[in-house]
């Protein structure tokens, strides 16, 4: 069974640019800050923000580490140029290297988390300098799989692409004229040479998006997914990833003591009063 995840890109574009404009301007801001990695997710967020707010109101920040590939830097530059946004570059090596050097046994996962959190610090600092809100770049696939760093790449003021699966991000990116080299290259966190998301995850985005769509959007049971042609092992593995990473999708639970507790019975939208 081949599931069609195609979206009407013009409609998505209209809703998402409207969302960015609304959420940025209702809080009294006019500008946005985006970490531009050279990958497709941040390129799409950048394109949407530029269209929503005007390119002059978007600051794209490149934050390379010493091992970041030159392709990533070039692709980020191409993206910023394509959409006419301001671009700045701040190296994170001097920030994270002293921490990395503290422990000779540091793992790649820890290094990746350090880099993601260093970038978060810079984005929020530039948010203050540029008077812009940080626009998120996490897509639905990676949020569901927990393929993210808590308080790192997950940190943002608003996320326009978090309800789009990776394959839908690709479709919308093509429609919005994101540079071809960005759309076509293998997705990577770019932590070491030759690293790819799909190599690390053990399956392709194309495959997992189909399954996630059935499990999440269409509310298929495990049995329904197997009947639809997915292996029991794959379904179990993905479901377990979703369950284990639920904590990454939530604010930390507050231990309830009083009659009214933040998170449980103190309920207001973020857009309260605006």
């Amino acid at each position, binding site marked *: 069974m081949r599931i*069609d995840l*195609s*979206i*009407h890109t*013009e*409609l*998505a574009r*209209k*809703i998402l640019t*409207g*969302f960015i404009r*609304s*959420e940025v301007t209702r809080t009294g801001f006019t500008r946005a800050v985006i970490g531009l990695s050279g990958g497709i997710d941040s390129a799409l967020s950048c394109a949407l923000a530029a269209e929503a707010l005007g390119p002059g109101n978007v600051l794209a920040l490149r934050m390379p580490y010493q091992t970041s590939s030159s392709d990533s830097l070039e692709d980020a530059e191409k993206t910023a140029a394509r959409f006419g946004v301001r671009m700045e570059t701040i190296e994170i090596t001097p920030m994270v290297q002293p921490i990395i050097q503290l422990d000779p046994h540091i793992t790649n996962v820890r290094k990746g988390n350090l880099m993601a959190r260093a970038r978060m610090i810079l984005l929020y600092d530039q948010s203050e300098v540029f008077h812009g809100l940080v626009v998120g770049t996490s897509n639905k696939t990676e949020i569901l799989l927990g393929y993210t760093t808590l308080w790192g790449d997950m940190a943002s003021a608003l996320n326009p692409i978090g*309800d789009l699966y990776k394959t839908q991000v690709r479709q919308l990116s093509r429609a919005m004229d994101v540079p071809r080299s960005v759309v076509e290259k293998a997705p990577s966190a770019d932590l070491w040479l030759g690293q790819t998301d799909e190599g690390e995850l053990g399956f392709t985005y194309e495959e997992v998006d189909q399954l996630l769509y059935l499990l999440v959007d269409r509310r298929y049971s495990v049995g329904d997914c197997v009947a639809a042609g997915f292996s029991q092992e794959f379904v179990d593995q993905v479901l377990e990833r979703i369950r284990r990473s639920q904590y990454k999708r939530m604010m930390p639970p507050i231990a309830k003591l009083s009659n009214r507790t933040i998170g449980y*019975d*103190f*309920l*207001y*939208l*973020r*857009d*309260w*009063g*605006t």
Partner: protein
Amino acid sequence: MQINLALAQIATKLGNVQANLEKHLDYIHQAEAQRADLVVFPELSLTGYILQDLVSTVSHKPAADDPVFGPLLKASQNLDLVVGFVDEDPRHRFYIASAYLSGGRVLHVHHKVYLPTYALFDEGRFFARGDSIRAFDTRFGRMGMLICEDFWHASPPYLLWLDGADVLVFSSASPGRGLNEHAKLESAWWVENVNQSYANLFTSFVVHSNRVGYEDGLNFWGAATVFDPRGERLAHGPYFEEALTMTTLDLNQIRRTRSRLPLMRDERADLVHKELTRILSK
């Protein structure tokens, strides 16, 4: 007889009733300038939609001495108004409500009967359910009002039809969802189809006003519509943008359609009653 109808699809400020009132008065003035007889605002147009703990702070009494309804009732001296608000009864139950204002008086208040409390909706947690579905007389004939989920159930429009309503006035704050390859969201597709079907089935006018704007990540899609008793679409507001959509309802169309298609005449409410009694007594 004709109604010059104005559908005001506005974005609201969440919990800021004063700001929303000012927008209402602005749209009412625009409608007046275009010689409107009736302006229909969306669900909870004076308060915003996802109110949660704001509910008790935004309720207003539909009466002349109320600071929000005072100016609206005054405006209703010149043209009729349908507005969405939070109503509070004397026992301090809060309702999602629509009020029909005309000639400085409140002609009717409808309390939302079906409160969606599933998926992205949580209305039943914060609001009391209305317990009546009544048509009412206006200077343009008999009408009935429903709010959003009310008309996702077939019985409320049916009851209004039996109670004599020839113009069904629906209001919504419908969150857009179900993006797929089509140019219309699933939620918009559903609502428009259903409203057109009601117009056909009940050989009546079906008027729908839906809000626009965003609340956190939710979008509201707008696209106010009017269908005539033949199911023909008379008006269609833009998607996602604020707009005042004007159209004229030729009420004589009701007679012409029902002369050809006497569904109203042949409706067997007594049979419905008998079978309902049997089904409910099981």
